[in-house]
């Protein structure tokens, strides 16, 4: 059975899917269309539940095989409903919408089979700006990243409605950062990945920001100022290798 999950930006779609997957620790499929170069949500799912297969649209044949085998599948839609999914027309599926109580009469109920209480979202989709950047290979100076994230989420580079990212830190760990303007503070979660202690990580990291009046150039430039240079990264990794066993070669 396919579960299609939709809702406004920042409603908590990935979090809800993670909660569902936690209840059924069996092989499952996760798919989110359209974000293959910056798959933050997919990476979050894959690191939390390694048994879950991540699919992108181009692997539809394989996906159909899993569905034929009865593997449970979760499709996470973007915050604008995508209707061009022929796969769903031919497959039985249930539609779940995560919507805040006060927004539940805005059309989602016409689409959804079931409505789940989501985070409040006041984003004006028509004027919203979406900025994404892959950051793979970049390792961050933690206090610099902290400063950048505080500035970003407090409005230094424009009005931020939603921001999320996966960042590699100097100690070899990768973290998921999560900000939603209707919720207090940010959530920082260490990803279940081995420490990267040799060279530049070749696994995914990246950032996504949704808001209005975003100064994309300033965001990108500030992020760049938080990167560790090759020499600083090598110095950190030398210290790390002395302190912990080599986990990734």
């Amino acid at each position: 059975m396919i579960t299609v999950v939709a809702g406004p930006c920042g409603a908590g779609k990935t979090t809800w899917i993670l909660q569902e997957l936690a209840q059924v620790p069996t092989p499952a499929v996760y798919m989110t269309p359209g974000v293959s170069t910056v798959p933050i949500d997919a990476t979050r799912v894959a690191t939390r539940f390694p048994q879950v297969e991540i699919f992108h649209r181009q692997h539809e044949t394989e996906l159909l095989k899993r569905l034929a085998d009865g593997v449970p599948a979760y499709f996470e839609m973007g915050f604008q409903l995508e209707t061009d999914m022929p796969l769903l027309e031919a497959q039985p599926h249930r539609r779940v919408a995560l919507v805040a109580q006060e927004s539940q009469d805005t059309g989602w109920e016409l689409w959804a089979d079931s409505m789940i209480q989501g985070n409040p979202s006041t984003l004006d989709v028509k004027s919203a700006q979406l900025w994404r950047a892959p950051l793979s290979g970049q390792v961050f100076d933690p206090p610099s990243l902290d400063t950048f994230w505080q500035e970003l989420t407090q409005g230094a580079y424009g009005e931020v409605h939603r921001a999320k990212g996966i960042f590699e830190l100097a100690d070899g760990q990768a973290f998921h950062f999560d900000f939603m303007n209707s919720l207090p503070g940010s959530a920082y979660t260490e990803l279940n990945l081995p420490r990267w202690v040799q060279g530049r990580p070749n696994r995914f990291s990246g950032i996504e920001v949704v808001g209005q009046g975003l100064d994309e150039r300033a965001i990108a430039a500030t992020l760049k100022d938080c990167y560790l240079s090759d020499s600083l990264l090598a110095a950190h990794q030398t210290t790390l290798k002395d302190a912990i066993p080599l986990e990734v070669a």
Partner: protein
Amino acid sequence: MNIAVLSCIHSNLEALEAVLREIDQQPVDQIYCLGDLVGYGPYPNEVVARIRELDIPTCQGCWDEDIVDGLNACDCSYPSLLAETRGHLAHEWTNREVTPETRAYLAELPLTLQQDNLCFVHGSPHSQHEYLLPDTSAFIALERVLATGADTLFCGHTHVPYVRNLENSHLTLKAVHPATSSPSHSSTPLASLKRIINAGSVGEPRHGRPNATYVIYTTDTQQADLREVEYDYAKTCAAILEKGLPAIFAWRLSQGLEYAEKADDPTHVCER
């Protein structure tokens, strides 16, 4: 006698003028300044000219020294790569902007000023770059006050104002005699209360609001009044943008966040 103590103006003329206007309305006999006249903000020459015009006794801050001698920072100057990059941008801008006259004035500033049992420094008596934070160890804090021979040490540099009483102060000396290998102790209670009074920052506050801070101290009662002054920070923000300084400085000033974050490790002893 009432004295007003200002620190860390950081080229913010608008904030300085607001503080001076407020001081004018108080029964203040003398103004002292703890340095960092320049750096980050848009009006380094104008701030120096105003301090000179009023003949305010001023000691040299870390930014004043850097403009004279060049950058030579200990780790505590820049707690992150981002802060370092921004600090260097501000330094280079200020270095281009200051006149030879301003630079010469900054070069001649003393490191310490003293009046009776009061001592005035920028960071600590050891260095303009050393932070005396509210939670710096009591031993280090007391040692820094004693090193001056004064009872009250006025400092700035942290950009957060505070008063710290080093009560029940005594120094304990522990020495091991080579012949016996047993430690001997010598404890000396101090006759008078020692205090550190941090004046905060006029031009680059870090207390979460954009308001300027300074201190009025009454020598007769030894009372310290930490004062906060509202000013039109939007004018300084506009000047930051107009003069080509990084736009993020304007945003941070408007949030009371400083232009670049500062060290906050109370266990760090500056090695500059």
